[in-house]
């Protein structure tokens, strides 16, 4: 299997138009449900007022978070599913293609397909009168940077998953949760305790969300991130992603050795 065919495999699994119910659940109902939950929380606090900078801020951040969340959730499952549900991990493993490449292919395609959920949310945003001011060039940068970063993070995660028991994709969710909490996705960084903020500034996702706001809302309203130039919020996460990719490759080599040493390629861990 090549990179292309593993992307194709993912497309077949995920973009299965012959199963409209499944498609609707993952690409419309779940993301919309998550967005409405936040909007409802906003609604009860403002006493019914629906507008202002914070609504736009949280709405856009949450919408683009879908790209991260859907990809990482998938990554959280894929290794365990291959290993325990389909029990094909060992066969994939002994096939001549590298499992690393196979995961890159599937993860990359998953990211692309998450674009659909994002589109649904953007359209829903028009109904909520979110004041979009889209800078198309920056939007392209949003996708490129996001793609590199998520694939890098995802691969690192898959390496971990090969060593752990099945826990309902927990690792993927945990990573996504960290990005959601610490990157200023739905609330400004200034709300977080001072000591956490330093950590936030080390996460590539923080810069990426800032880039998202610049691309979609026309300006950065978040005070801390406004200090960075647009070029900085493009380059910084890009550089980190490269490091992540390198690290994940190295970790795969280590994990590869360890799984074979400990015979973890076909373990089943339900209880």
């Amino acid at each position, binding site marked *: 299997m090549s990179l292309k065919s593993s992307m194709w495999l993912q497309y077949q699994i995920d973009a299965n138009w012959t*199963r409209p*119910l*499944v498609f609707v*659940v*993952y690409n419309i*109902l*779940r*993301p*919309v*449900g*998550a967005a*409405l*939950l*936040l909007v*409802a*929380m*906003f*609604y*009860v*606090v*403002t006493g019914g007022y629906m507008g202002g900078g*914070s609504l736009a801020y*949280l709405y856009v951040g949450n919408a683009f978070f879908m790209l991260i969340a859907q990809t990482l959730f998938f990554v959280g499952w894929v290794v365990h599913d291959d290993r325990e*549900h389909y029990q094909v991990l060992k066969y994939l493993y002994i096939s001549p293609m590298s499992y690393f490449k196979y995961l890159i292919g599937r993860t990359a395609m998953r990211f692309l397909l998450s674009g659909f959920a994002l589109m649904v949310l953007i359209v829903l945003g028009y109904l909520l009168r979110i004041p979009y001011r889209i800078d198309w060039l920056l939007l392209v940068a949003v996708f490129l940077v996001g793609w590199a970063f998520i694939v890098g993070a995802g691969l690192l995660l898959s390496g971990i998953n090969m060593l*752990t*028991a099945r*826990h*309902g994709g*927990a*690792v993927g*969710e*945990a990573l996504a*949760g*960290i990005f*959601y*909490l610490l990157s200023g*996705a*739905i*609330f*400004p960084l200034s*709300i*977080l305790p001072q000591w956490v903020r330093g950590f936030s500034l080390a996460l590539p996702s923080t810069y990426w969300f800032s880039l998202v706001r610049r691309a979609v809302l026309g300006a950065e309203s978040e005070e801390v991130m406004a200090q960075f130039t647009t070029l900085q919020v493009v380059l910084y996460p890009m550089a980190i992603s490269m490091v992540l990719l390198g690290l994940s490759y190295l970790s795969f080599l280590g994990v590869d050795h360890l799984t074979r040493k400990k015979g973890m390629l076909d373990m*089943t*861990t*339900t*209880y």
Partner: protein
Amino acid sequence: MNIMLNLRAVRGRAYPRVIGALREPSWMLWEVVLPMLSIAAFIYFYRSLNAPKEFEGFVVLGGVMTTYWLNVLWGMASQFYWEKETGNLQLYLAAPMSKMSILAGMALGGIFGTTVRAVSIIFIGVFVFEISFVISHPFLLVAIFMVTLLAMYGMGMMFASLYLLWGREAWNMNALFQEPIYFITGQNFPVKALGPTVAMAASVIPLTLGLDAMRQLLFPEAAGWGFLDPMLELGILCVSAVIMLVMARQLLAFMERKGRETGKLTMRWQ
């Protein structure tokens, strides 16, 4: 019906869950840290909007109940399907105990594991986020909590047979039962905000009324946000618990019969 046999069967099936929960070292970490991340995000989100303090309490309460809900989905609803895939299901079906004992054992074991998590979440809520709540009606509170769990796990028992009948596709229902359900059951906000029609419809899921009642009891400041009277909610929850359990039994019998007729349910790879 042989009572000792079934009690032992319940204990037998609960056992691996209790042990499994304690034995896998990565378990505690994921299952507590994970919900904590989104709980923290929602708390900071409320803070950024200058919401009253009790709203942060709603988030912790919602987080606690959601861990049980997730256990109902992943540890109950989709469990028979997993048991089939691993080959346990046919051994369970051919054994003499009532299959309800298997479901009950799964539920009790699941509740044990989840409670450890839930307690950790409450601790973090109280000590890290300084959430305070009032326990003014301890008995009513406990009763509502217990009956909510009973109804929720009853629902999970029902789904276990349904998912099995449905096959692989049903798996995706669990996805549907997360975010959209968080929204309509009012996970982090008073469900009353959705209007009486939606709140009423959402009450089909026991989580909705359980959350609403406990929210009113624990955070009296927000009593005005209550959907129905907690006593009434308790009554409705009792009725729904009974309905869920009866339906779980019916569906189980139906699943067993269907399985013996078609030969599909006990076989790996349909």
